[in-house]
């Protein structure tokens, strides 16, 4: 296979001016990340700073109702509240080894921004975060966390003022500041080697889950389910299971409001192949190849593209990709909160909703793992707005 490709997807479609830092990063991946010293230091950080390993929790109430066992891989319990910290600590550590003093990154919901700002503090690096102005307004809680952590936050006013525009601006900044800054790409997307590098750091999720389910049930799970925006939590959860051909791998894309022709964030289901942000992948685009605005109630899924390895797993059929709309995700959020006392991030609620909506396709007694990629307290304002009344009225 061609370097940096997953089947027909991936590659390195960037300005020539970005080739030198990408080459430098490829070299660092091959020499530093694979070294025992780096791996020992990274694993120590995951254990003692992130709090890994994260538990695999059985949901007793929902499992009784569904007729099969619903297990949650608890990435919401990581330090900073999502899976993002696995990747940002890995890349921050790599940045130290590469001798660069600063990180730059982009963020949508703000979870990657917070996780990057945190990793920068932990490893004494400077940090600059690009965030769409629309996201700055709707994720104020995370904006304040980043400010508290001392990151320089740059609101992006161009285009749709969301994640894709933040990535455009981060790529521009990186061209100019490549000698001092490492681009801590937030998801398993973008130009090679980012999709591979981010998967490497997120693969701990699936490795742990596989060991834990074998220990608890004595067998491999029937299915592993995860939400997909750029796709880093999903590729992390899937990776260890890809060779287990009998395990059903399900990625869940955001269908937005779910009305015909509405803005959505489901390029694998509703998009077509194209090139954006350095990668050949599935995209939401018009017939002229202009990128369409995306939408999801979950800001972290709000992206018109998807990591190239998911495009390949979709095309090859090894993984399947469903959709869940805003209302279904909100209902799943309430259901999991009320049944189990666990508030999922609205992103992760898409994966829970897929299981609830597709329960008929799952055999009785099966074991299903949902990657609970983040915690939902960041989303409480949005949820109240969407259900149209305050939580005080719930009873």
């Amino acid at each position, binding site marked *: 296979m061609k370097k940096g490709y997953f089947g027909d997807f991936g590659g390195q479609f960037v300005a*020539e*001016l970005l*080739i030198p830092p990408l080459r430098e990063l490829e070299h660092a991946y091959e020499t530093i990340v694979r070294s025992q010293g780096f791996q020992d230091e990274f694993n120590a950080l995951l254990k003692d700073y992130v709090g890994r390993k994260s538990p695999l929790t059985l949901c007793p109430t929902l499992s009784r109702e569904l007729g099969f066992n619903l297990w949650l891989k608890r990435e919401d319990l990581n330090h900073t509240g999502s899976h993002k910290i696995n990747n940002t600590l890995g890349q921050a550590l790599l940045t130290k080894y590469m001798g660069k003093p600063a990180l730059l990154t982009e963020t949508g919901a703000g979870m990657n921004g917070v996780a990057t700002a945190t990793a920068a503090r932990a490893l004494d690096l400077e940090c600059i975060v690009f965030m769409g102005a629309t996201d700055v307004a709707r994720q104020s809680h995370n904006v304040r966390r980043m400010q508290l952590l001392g990151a320089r936050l740059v609101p992006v006013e161009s285009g749709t003022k969301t994640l894709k525009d933040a990535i455009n601006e981060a790529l521009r900044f990186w061209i100019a500041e490549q000698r001092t800054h490492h681009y801590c790409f937030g998801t398993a997307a973008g130009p090679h080697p980012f999709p591979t590098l981010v998967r490497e750091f997120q693969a701990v999720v699936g490795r742990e889950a596989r060991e834990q389910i074998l220990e608890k049930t004595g067998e491999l799970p029937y299915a592993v389910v995860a939400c997909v925006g750029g796709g880093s939590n999903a590729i992390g959860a899937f990776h260890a299971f890809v060779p287990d051909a009998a395990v059903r791998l399900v990625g869940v894309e955001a269908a937005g409001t779910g009305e015909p022709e509405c803005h959505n964030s489901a390029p694998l289901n509703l998009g077509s192949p194209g090139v*954006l942000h350095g990668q050949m992948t599935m995209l939401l685009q018009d017939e002229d190849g202009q990128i369409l605005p995306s939408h999801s109630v979950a800001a972290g899924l709000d992206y018109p593209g998807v990591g190239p390895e998911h495009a390949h797993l979709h095309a090859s059929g090894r993984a399947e990709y469903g959709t869940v709309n805003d209302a279904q995700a909100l209902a799943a959020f309430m259901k999991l909160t009320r049944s189990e006392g666990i508030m999922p991030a609205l992103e992760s609620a898409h994966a829970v909703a897929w299981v609830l909506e597709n329960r008929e396709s799952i055999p009785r007694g099966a074991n299903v793992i949902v990657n609970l990629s983040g915690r939902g307290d960041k989303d409480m304002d949005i949820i109240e707005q969407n259900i149209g009344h305050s939580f005080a009225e719930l009873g």
Partner: protein
Amino acid sequence: MKTSRLTERIRRANKAGRKALIPFLPGGFPDRESFWKHLEALDAGGADIIEVGVPFSDPCADGPVVEQASIQALENGASLRWLLQGLAARAGRFQAELVLMGYLNPFLQYGFGRLAEDAQAAGVSGFIIPDLPLDEDAPYRTVLQERGMALVPLVGLNTDEERMRAYAQVAMGYVYVVSVLGTTGARESFPAELAQALARARKAFDLPVALGFGIREPAQLQIFGDSIDAVIFGSALITHIRQTGDTAGFMARWA
């Protein structure tokens, strides 16, 4: 390999004792009708080559001036299809050679084979695709070269000589040297490493060397002497059109 019309055109200007002039104008800017008037004025005003921008929603290798012009053009309804039809209707009318400059995705969605056919019919001599580096460009370059069109390489301050030599083995037209490590156009001064980058390009390529990004006025050219053969100006021209609505006056300063 047959010599590109782009190469010949720059050499002809150099033989006449001047740098070749290469303005960049986004297709459909400032609006769909006056774009054609500005294009004609650039042609009449002495442009040797005109780089016509194909607007894209996410121009992540361009600075704010070009991005805003590109978005304005899209809002005006400009598209690759519209641009190619307009150029085809005017084929043969331009003295200058035409180059299409745009991001890969709109070209891919048009269909690259059909693009090469229609661009050739519209009188286009070459392409610049900023998000298509050497490692990815072979299949596209082949399709263009089969129809006599060049894929012009972009190199920068951080492109080493070995990489330039690899480009030089396959490239046609001219080599576009980006004057700054960054995306911002017009600026006050050039970085110190630019002279070395131009020297590397001169050594590695048999093609003319064109300098772009940050070119605002003719006085800037004196410092470069014989190290460049052509100048490309984009942001400064766009800003001038925004401020004055005029193109002829801008070109007259360079003649």
